[in-house]
């Protein structure tokens, strides 16, 4: 028994360094960032005098940051939906006892091993209007401008839909601030290239876990292949879908490397994001407090997505 007690002490002592590191470098530094974000540290003198919520007011009233939030939402929606659709589609094709299965799987997955920087460098060239796909497909470079396209699709206030929105008191939505920047879709394309294989692998693993008897039973009951998929398979895949949405979502909320290598801020901030705004504000302009505020806003966005997921996941494991 004494032996056990000594081992217990050893076990806890050995865990201390890691716990301390996380306590300081994750939680401590988050607290520190919050503190900086509430200060006046907006130049090199790093004046930590309390400044209330002034930095938050400043960034939220900044048009660039507003556009960054728009871009984050648009990018996340397109990126997550496209990756899910392509991943699910490919997983279903691969799950049909095809030949050279592992070859196809490897080809869809290898972009995951590459850095977002390399992906960005290649896709930049693929989508540069004077080069890449425009040349391969013989497209007109003046109309197919990819990530250099300044167009933002939005509901015009004087259009029918605009009048309708105004009629129900939502006229404020009929501005470019609630639009879809075309240039952003180039980034979505590159990100989908990199991440859809991951979704494919998640779905494929789940599909393999569905017993054949279940499908057989459905067929015996006269269900068509589509009905089988829609009513039996898809509901069983829900937990995987949740996982994929969380993983892809938290990547897209933090997107930085890809955008730096491929497009930078783009025309009219069409491909700008909170991460690049944060870096420029803090490390180019030395406005540390504002930069910290952007970082904290990013953390809140990610935490909103991740914390319920972690808790759900841990509960599931405990129940197992």
């Amino acid at each position: 028994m004494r032996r056990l007690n000594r081992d217990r002490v050893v076990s806890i002592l050995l865990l201390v360094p890691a716990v301390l590191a996380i306590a300081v470098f994750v939680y401590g530094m988050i607290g520190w960032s919050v503190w900086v974000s509430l200060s006046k540290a907006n130049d090199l003198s790093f004046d930590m005098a309390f400044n209330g919520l002034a930095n938050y007011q400043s960034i939220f009233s900044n048009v660039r940051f507003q556009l960054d939030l728009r871009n984050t939402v648009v990018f996340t929606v397109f990126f997550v939906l496209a990756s899910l659709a392509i991943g699910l589609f490919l997983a279903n094709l691969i799950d049909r006892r095809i030949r050279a299965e592992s070859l196809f799987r490897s080809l869809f997955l290898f972009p995951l091993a590459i850095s977002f920087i390399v992906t960005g460098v290649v896709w930049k060239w693929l989508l540069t209007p004077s080069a890449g796909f425009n040349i391969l497909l013989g497209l007109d470079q003046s109309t197919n401008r990819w990530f250099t396209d300044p167009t933002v699709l939005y509901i015009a206030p004087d259009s029918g839909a605009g009048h309708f929105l105004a009629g129900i008191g939502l006229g404020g939505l009929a501005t470019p601030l609630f639009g879809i920047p075309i240039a952003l879709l180039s980034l979505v394309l590159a990100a989908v290239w990199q991440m859809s294989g991951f979704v494919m692998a998640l779905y494929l693993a789940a599909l393999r876990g569905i017993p054949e008897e279940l499908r057989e039973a459905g067929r015996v009951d006269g269900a068509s292949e589509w009905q089988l998929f829609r009513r039996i398979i898809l509901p069983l895949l829900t937990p995987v879908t949740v996982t994929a949405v969380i993983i892809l979502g938290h990547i897209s909320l933090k997107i930085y490397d890809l955008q730096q290598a491929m497009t930078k801020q783009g025309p009219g901030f069409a491909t700008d994001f909170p991460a690049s705004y944060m870096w420029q504000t803090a490390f180019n302009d030395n406005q540390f407090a504002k930069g910290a505020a952007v970082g904290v806003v990013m953390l809140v966005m990610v935490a909103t997505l991740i914390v319920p997921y972690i808790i759900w996941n841990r509960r599931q494991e405990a129940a197992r």
Partner: protein
Amino acid sequence: MIDSAARSTSLPGPRPRLALRRVARSAVYLTLFAAAIFYVIPVYLLFMTGTKTFAEAANQALMWDLPKAASFDSFAEAWRTISPNFLNSAKIAIPAAVLSSIIGSVNGYILAKWRFRGSETLFTLILFGMFIPYQSILIPLLKVESAAGLYNTITGLVIIHIIYGIPITTLIFRNYYVGIPEELVEASRMDGAGFFGIYRHILLPLSIPGFVVVLIWQFTSAWNDFLFAVTLTGQDNWPITVAVNNLAGSFSVAWNIQMAGALIAALPTLLVYILLGKYFMRGLLAGSLKG
């Protein structure tokens, strides 16, 4: 079975059905093939452009044409520019991966086999660290690194990758060790083995796959890191990601050099993926907390 056989007789005869199936089958392969092209094209372009000469690469209209004569001059030129950065990346990623896996293994062992009151909550709190946007800790981190004299050092980056790697490495090992039967541990304890004895004789010998997964994962994330490196190092200590991004951002650098540089940057992790893909996948799945 009888029921389904009876039903099939009421459907069109077996012959057209077979033909239909063959068409569907071809469609599946055709689609898979098209998808494969989509995934391969960027790498094809990387390699193909990298093997072109400067004069050939300069003609954008012919960018999709195969090189007239394969030349590895671009790779040699790119290597001359970025080999110091390649070396920096190796000096960062290898120690970070090795040390991370040792630390992760010990943490995982304790959280799986030496649970105490609150250890599960502690584990959950540790996990959160792997999802945070690093923008929310970057300013204090820069301050601490500067104060500790670690700004613009390889050592500084290694330490950072180890610390922010703790959540995922702990997670992978913990979930791996949870799968090792408690009876084995208990039997070893009965034989008089203590904390270290159980680890050395029971868990460590079974840990090889866990180590491979974590080594690959940490190597890949440290090698591919951009944000920490661009914030915390100067030009002399830039790893390859920052160097390649810089190469690509410069208008004076020809495409063939950019592409060759990008391919060199991607090579080590690609190689790891090709050789150890199965383990790579497990690390990815762990990233979704599925262990």
